[in-house]
């Protein structure tokens, strides 16, 4: 984990309030894996003060480039969205443990379930799984047609279902609806998205092997401040904990309380 000033190579709006940002640097890219995240400083001064945790969507070690995809909503991400090619961004990373690849074999089918702005880290994961010869199914859930992004990119890597809650694009309903309706078969689950979605996955597929990527408000991002802890499932003492920033953000289904 290092701090590096990375150069903005490009920044594009790819859906309603959603931006794709490509950063280039020297050293940091080489350390990154699927499912890890970066801690970005969006401005020079002390406002906003804290870094913003954003997942890695794509890693290009040859070019020394990283892609992140984020929704601009609050102060920090709105300022990030103003960055133009050539400007520099201070990046702390890579942080956390990404999606494990060694839990799946070439003969397996993996289902990658993304919800909204939880979709991005699944892209690099899918690239890696495909490299290993794993069959991938993507189920990408969004609120509405205006929020959909990266569908074509995922289609190129495998079977892809897009759902929207309001039915304005793809299937109408939740990701769970699609999986049950289409009776999709798979050996392992990888998922990232809002907590209600992750809870539904855990409840619907209690017997499946799976990995969930969690979110929490963070201070340090490196395990020192204890901002991002969660309880461990079935812990009677209620004193055990995991830190999402360093023990996660990816946890096996059933490990921590959602």
């Amino acid at each position, binding site marked *: *984990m290092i*701090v590096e000033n990375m150069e903005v190579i490009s920044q594009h709006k790819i859906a309603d309030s959603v931006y794709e940002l490509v950063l280039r640097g020297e050293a940091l890219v080489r350390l990154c894996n699927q499912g890890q995240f970066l801690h970005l*400083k969006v401005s020079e*001064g*002390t*406002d*906003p*003060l*804290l*870094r913003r945790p954003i997942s890695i969507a794509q890693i290009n070690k040859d070019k020394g480039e990283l892609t992140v995809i984020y929704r601009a909503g609050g102060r*920090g991400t709105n300022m990030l969205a103003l960055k133009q090619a050539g400007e520099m961004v201070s990046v*702390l990373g890579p942080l956390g443990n990404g999606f494990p690849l060694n839990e799946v074999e070439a003969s397996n089918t993996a289902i990658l379930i993304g919800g909204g702005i939880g979709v991005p880290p699944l892209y690099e994961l899918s690239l890696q799984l495909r490299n290993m010869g794993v069959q991938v199914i993507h189920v990408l859930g969004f609120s509405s047609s205006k929020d959909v992004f990266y569908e074509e990119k995922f289609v190129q890597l495998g079977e892809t279902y897009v759902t929207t809650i309001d039915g304005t694009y793809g299937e109408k309903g939740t990701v769970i609806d699609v999986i049950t309706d289409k009776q999709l078969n798979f050996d392992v689950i990888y998922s990232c998205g809002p907590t209600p979605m992750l809870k539904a996955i855990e409840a619907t597929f209690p017997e499946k092997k799976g990995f969930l990527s969690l979110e*929490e*408000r*963070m*201070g*340090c*991002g*490196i*395990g*020192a*401040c*204890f*901002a*991002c*802890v*969660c*309880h461990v499932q079935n812990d009677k*003492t*209620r*004193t055990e*904990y995991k830190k999402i920033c*360093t023990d996660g953000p990816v946890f096996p289904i059933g490990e921590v309380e959602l």
Partner: protein
Amino acid sequence: MSRLNIELPGLSMKNPIMPASGCFGFGQEYAKLYDLSKLGAIAIKATTVETRFGNPTPRVAETSSGMLNAIGLQNPGLEKVIENELVWLEKYDVPIVANVAGTKTEDYIEVAEKISKSKNVHALELNISCPNVKEGGITFGTNPKVASELTKLVKEVSEVPVYVKLSPNVTDIVEMAVAVEEAGADGLSMINTLLGMRIDLKKRKPILANGAGGLSGPAIKPVAIRMIHQVSQAVSIPIIGMGGITTAEDVIEFFLAGASCVAVGTANFVDPFVCPTIIEDLPRALDELGVDHISELIGGSWK
């Protein structure tokens, strides 16, 4: 010849920079990034008698040039801190300041007595000012009589010098400082966080699960400087200054206000390398002011 070393009760420091309690865990995470022996000292996370999970999340919220936290004194408990964390820290050549917390007087005394026996604990920091503990922590920090009694009792059992960490959430900080000095404190540590709150507009409730939390970071620096400026003129024990320090210039401002060394808290979250960076940068800052040794600056704004 060093231009940065500082001698304080119990603390022989290579340089005046320590990470602030609660902002550095027990050092393990930062040890992966740089050699902890570079630091002047380390103030470890508040230790209580029992294991604590702390408050529910969200525990942090951002504010303009600051942050709120309500961690709630999460820590593995006295025994594990002594056996695991402090033993692990022994491999570094750096004095440890043990931050002592509790809810009842007896808790403080038990932690102080036992933790002060650890080989590398060179001083205690009596945390009477944590705003995130409900049961009484806060009254220790806002009532001079109570603070003074606690200080006396802790001094009786501690094998190392005791620094009392003051809360800024008081009408008269000088009164508090003088009270604990008279009670035998070897030094002061100030300031802890200001009590603050942010509200989530959509959910219509505080962002922090705990409601209010402690405000830290550059936003509070002027309050810290003002209080240290007042207190350092009223007491004769040294002050560990903190509150929003981010740069070598900030360190110098705290020295001029009256601090004898400083702690860096929130800035570690923004840049995990901030402590060694400041230490390396200090000689340049001293050069620009034509100062040989940093200790010449202590209280320079009023001396």
